[in-house]
């Protein structure tokens, strides 16, 4: 299997490389991300804008390159996140399920080890996550929720930058890394 770090698009699916993680990594990292999401903003409010559970979901989905694995990771993280929030169970679950599925599907076509690809994908999936969550809140719960595109773009960029660093850190946790 040949791999070139200069290429963004893979010529075929056989070029994609499946990353494997230990089981405790697959459990603890999402839990840590959720814990960070609910605990750290108590002390540092500005860190509340970071969507670490989303970034972890995107990372594992991209790396696993399996849509089913991606959607299961997304559903699990989302449901746990829902259970710790005031949302009804399923709101984050559905959105992150879709994110995990599409991220895994995208990971089959792109060289997800590329930093720029990770930046763009993290930015895109952040926007997708926020927009879809807003849409579901309005459609399913009938609640009025403001979606500010400009703010979403800024936060998306911020999360994308964080995602590049986070993904680089998480790469260390891969089997055989």
């Amino acid at each position, binding site marked *: 299997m040949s791999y070139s770090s200069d290429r963004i698009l893979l010529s075929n699916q056989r070029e994609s490389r499946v990353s494997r993680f230990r089981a405790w990594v697959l459990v603890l990292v999402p839990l840590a991300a959720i814990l960070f999401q609910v605990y750290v903003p108590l002390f540092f409010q500005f860190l509340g804008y970071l969507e670490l559970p989303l970034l972890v979901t995107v990372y594992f989905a991209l790396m696993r390159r399996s*849509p*089913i694995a991606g*959607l*299961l990771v997304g*559903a699990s993280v*989302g*449901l746990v996140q829902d259970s710790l929030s005031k949302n*009804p*169970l*399923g*709101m984050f*679950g*559905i959105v992150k*399920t*879709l994110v995990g*599925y599409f991220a895994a*599907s995208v990971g089959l076509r792109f060289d997800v080890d590329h930093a720029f690809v990770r930046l763009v994908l993290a930015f895109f999936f952040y926007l997708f996550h926020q927009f879809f969550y807003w849409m579901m809140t309005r459609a*399913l*719960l*009938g609640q009025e929720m403001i979606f500010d595109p400009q703010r979403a773009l800024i936060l998306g960029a911020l999360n994308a930058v964080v995602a590049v660093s986070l993904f680089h850190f998480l790469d260390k946790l891969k089997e055989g890394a």
Partner: protein
Amino acid sequence: MAPMESLINRYRNITVLLLVILAQLMLLAVQVKNDQEVRMIRVWSVTAVTPLARVLESIRSGAFGFFQNYFLLRDVHEENRRLKADLDRLKMENVFLKTELSMADRVKALAQFQSRSPSRTLASRVIATGANSNSRLVYVDAGSAAGVQRGMGVVTPDGIVGKVLAAYPTASEVLLITDPDFAAGVISQKSQARGTLKGQGYANCKVDYVPLQVKVEVGEMFYTSGDDRIFPKGFPVGKVLAVRRGQDFLDIQVEPSGLKQGLEEVLILIEGVHQAIPEAPPSPSAPIYLAPPPPQSTPVADAAEEEDASQAAAPTLRGPLTEADRLVRRYRTIGEAQGHKFGEGLPGSRPPDFNYRPQPATAASVPAPRSTAPPAIQGSPAAPPASKPVPAAAPPPAAAPDTP
């Protein structure tokens, strides 16, 4: 099975995604309630199921309705056919009953005429018509066995019909007055013009041999003259429809009155009795019932009723009185009571007091005995005797000769 497995493998990812999404949606729906405190899963379920149920119900009701209507229509068709048959039968019955009723009326009129007429007659029924289309012949169900003889006249209460041409044991042949061979002597009601009635082969007859100088009016009635020795004098023949001047005689068209109501029952004149020609045209054979006049409650009507009672023996104005008759009678009484004669006196002379109410005129016409005289009411003026004139302006004297 292999294609199925490949299909499942091919869409495995999207299938799993949909299942997971669906499961979470269910989870969401179980928890969330809408603003009416109804769980979303109920709302979604109802929203998802009811359109399908509506479609299914539409299909089911449509299918059932179609078959039901089909069978119903078959039943309706059958019922319609049966109702039509019933309607036809009822129409037939209705026509039959109307005919029976009409026949009963005719028979009743015939019986009344038979009882009133001085002539001895024999009632019979028309049972057939002549075979020749040009001739106007009918057969009646009374023959020589019943005393019918050739040459006897045949009439109805409305007028003459024909004469017996031949009498068979059980039936008789009657030549109608519309037959060209028929002739009978007739006389007009007003001008007493004598002529001969002849058939013309169609509905109307003509009266011949009436001189040109005789005046016969349209609408005048002709009666039998008795000259032909068939019909006794005085039977109605018909009404004049048209009168034209012919070469030597008047051409008079007559509408036969005896054939106007159709011909089903007739009377054969066994022994004819001559009668006088009536002054007025014959009234319809059925007597007309006149209802009594309506009760009057006005003072004028009360006075008129009193006067009616007092003058019931008057020779004129007999029969049902109209309001005008009562007024004339009342004013005449008032005038007589006050010595006023209507039609006399110059214009501007004093008229009678029309408000004066005279005493009932029993004392004037037939004096009543004292014991039966009405008691006088104290303080009320009593009426003077009718024979004693009273000035119109002066009130009547307080005591009348026949009151205590």
